[in-house]
């Protein structure tokens, strides 16, 4: 393997592991903020205990999100130096703004929140967790505007051999980035809801602390239902944007080979990129791809064959990841409705249902990761869509250097992720204080 492939694997792996921790941070910070606000408003101590219990799980998760995030920022320089040089004028400033305007806020106030229960008034203390939730989600916005530039570059001119900023306003109002932001955070908020529903179900199944976990379950179920719906709607809009600005990605998502009007979709399809087609396609639904992509059943959808081979993303991976995301997203909707129906007396639900809620904690995680695989694999072969190829972006490094660091990433990150899951499971099962 060469430096390019090793660097891609390293970045992909580091991002995937980082993104195990990020969505729960985004979702749970908001949920804890809602719980603590209820405590401040009603004076009901249960909500304070809830904020502490869920806050502890939040913190175990948060620490790893922070430390795995730093490596991502630095990898642009270490492994993708040509990319950094090429887009630094735009991309670098978005990352720098994220750190100054958002991440400082989050990191400083989470510590104040943790250590400040007895030092601050209840109101001020609740403000701290709101600041954390706000800052975490604001961080996501800046990061996704940066990613939005890679997906759909705007507000730049190519000058002096690099992409130079021509309009900051266009960069920060990039519709691609904003929609990606809403799609990601609503997915993360739903994930937070499912996490709370699932962990509450562990305790409800044992009939322990029923009042505490019923209240928690109710907050979680509301988050899960509302945002499972919103994430799907925003996702549909995301599909429209992709159809418009990244037609090759759309074609790969659907393994759609021939340009045609009234483009169909197949319930089951197996891509066969070597023969530029699908080896199996069953369950044809006419015009539905045109309708989903362009909100018009007769719209023309460009097929992969109309793109030069070197401009096509890896079809099988993009296609499978997209199907996985949509399938799990649909499952989330069903589960969220069930949780919402059960929300008043979840302890009286059938043990099977409660067990199902426990076992589906990973579902939104996999859906979100699959969604990111669609976004990033589908962007290939470009690192900045249409203007810079991934292969032209990598640093000049010795193969051994990258091979060693990749192995180190694998070992350290897998250990950390395993430890984190072990600790989360341990503290999730504990009785609240």
């Amino acid at each position, binding site marked *: 393997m060469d430096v390019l492939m090793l660097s891609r694997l390293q970045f992909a792996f580091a991002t995937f592991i980082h993104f195990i921790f990020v969505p729960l941070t985004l979702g749970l910070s908001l949920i804890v903020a809602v719980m603590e606000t209820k405590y401040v408003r009603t004076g009901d101590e249960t909500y304070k205990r809830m904020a*502490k219990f869920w806050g*502890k799980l939040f*913190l*175990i998760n948060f*620490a*790893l999100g*922070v*430390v*795995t*995030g*730093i*490596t991502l*920022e*630095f990898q*642009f*320089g*270490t492994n993708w*130096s040509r990319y*950094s040089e090429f*887009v*630094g*004028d735009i991309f*670098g*400033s978005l*990352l*720098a*703004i994220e*750190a*100054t*305007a958002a991440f*400082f806020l989050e*990191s*400083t*106030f*989470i*510590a*104040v929140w*943790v*250590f*400040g*229960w*007895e*030092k601050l008034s209840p109101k001020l203390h609740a403000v701290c967790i709101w600041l954390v939730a706000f800052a975490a989600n604001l961080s996501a916005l800046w990061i996704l505007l940066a990613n939005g530039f890679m997906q759909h570059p705007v507000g730049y001119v190519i000058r002096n051999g*690099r992409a*130079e*900023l*021509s309009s*900051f306003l266009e960069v920060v109002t990039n519709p691609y980035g904003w929609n990606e932001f809403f799609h990601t955070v609503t997915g993360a908020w739903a994930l937070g809801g499912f996490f709370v529903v699932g962990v509450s179900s562990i305790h409800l199944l044992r009939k322990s602390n029923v009042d505490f976990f019923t209240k928690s379950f109710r907050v979680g179920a509301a988050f899960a239902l509302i945002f499972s719906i919103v994430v799907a709607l925003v996702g549909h809009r995301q599909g429209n944007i992709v159809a418009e600005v990244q037609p090759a990605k759309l074609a790969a998502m659907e393994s759609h080979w021939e340009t045609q009007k009234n483009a169909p979709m197949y319930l089951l399809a197996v891509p066969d990129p070597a023969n530029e087609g699908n080896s199996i396609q069953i369950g044809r639904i006419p015009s539905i791809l045109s309708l989903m992509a362009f909100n018009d059943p007769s719209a023309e959808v460009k097929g992969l064959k109309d793109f030069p081979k070197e401009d096509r993303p890896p079809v099988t991976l993009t296609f499978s990841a997209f199907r996985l995301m949509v399938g799990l997203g649909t499952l989330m909707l069903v589960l969220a409705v069930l949780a919402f129906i059960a929300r008043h007396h979840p302890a009286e639900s059938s043990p099977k249902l409660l067990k199902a809620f426990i076992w589906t904690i990973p579902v939104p995680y996999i859906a979100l990761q699959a969604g990111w695989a669609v976004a990033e694999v589908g962007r290939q072969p470009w690192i900045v869509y249409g203007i810079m190829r991934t292969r032209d972006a990598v*640093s*000049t*490094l010795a193969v051994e*250097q990258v091979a060693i*660091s990749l192995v*180190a990433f694998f070992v350290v990150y897998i250990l*950390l992720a395993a*430890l984190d899951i072990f*600790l989360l499971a*341990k*503290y999730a099962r504990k009785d609240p*204080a």
Partner: protein
Amino acid sequence: MDLGTTWFILWGVLWAIYFVLDGFDFGIGIIRPFFSKSDVETRIMYNAMGPFWDGNEVWLITAGGVTFAAFPKTYAVMFSSLYTPLMLLLFALILRGVTLEFRSKVDSEGWRKLWDACNFLGSFLPALLLGVAFANIFKGVPIDGNGILQGNLLTLLNPYGLAGGLLFVALFAHHGALWLAFKSEGDIRARALGLAGKLWPVVAVLVVLFLVMSWTMTQLFTNYLVNPILFAILLVPVIGLILTYTYRKQGRPLASWVGSALLIGGAALFGVVGIFPALLPSSLNPAYSMTIENSSSTPLTLSIMLGVALVFVPIVIIYQVWTLHTFRHPVTKEDLEYEEAY
């Protein structure tokens, strides 16, 4: 002053702030195995940095981000040519970060020992690596015309680089001992002040040694000789070195810590001013150096980022100082019973 120079100064100041702030976290981690006599003392040491270390680390992310935003080519060349030390630094920081969160989560002696070892490694290695890296930056690294490092990790472990590494370890250990004294009381406070007293001569000797080596082995003094007024900058670390000594003798750990902060920040700025207008000098050929001129972003980006920095950095400083004020009390045994304590 033009935009490029303004950003150069901001760049140096951000790195200096990072060293001053995370320096005491590293320092506590470095002295802990030699200082702590019990689990209670170890926990007091961790909790002395408890509410701060996370916010401190963000200064590194900001310094890195600003290098990326304001001087993208420097960012690209510096980070790729320092690949291995940077990776080591990142892994060390990961260990340091998770230690604090994980250590108290499982009640087992072996578990705590494991994380204590990780915390030491995660504090000592960054101190050493940052020292080695910055000394090499001050001296110049062998980058060629394509921004590729002609050498490897061993190239960086030259006498001057190692002197920089040792200097950082000593500076941070001293800095951490003073912070610990500020955040503790009774016996621990007295012993921490005592340790700082023992470390001070080591720091002083290494500072002098580093200055002598800078004079003989690097071009750092060229700017100073051309503009003798710049020697005033060198007064900052020297005054810091004296103040930290005087205030410690008076038993005022926070004031002494501020002196140490001036010493660390001043030392960083001394080097940064010395390499101006380069951010990463090439030891092969001055024409290959990464400078303000050949590596900066467009004036548009620099202006926008300057606006962002002028608004947000003061806000960050205000709320971080507020945090410091809120948690200024010494950590006591009772504090360790607080359920969220590390």
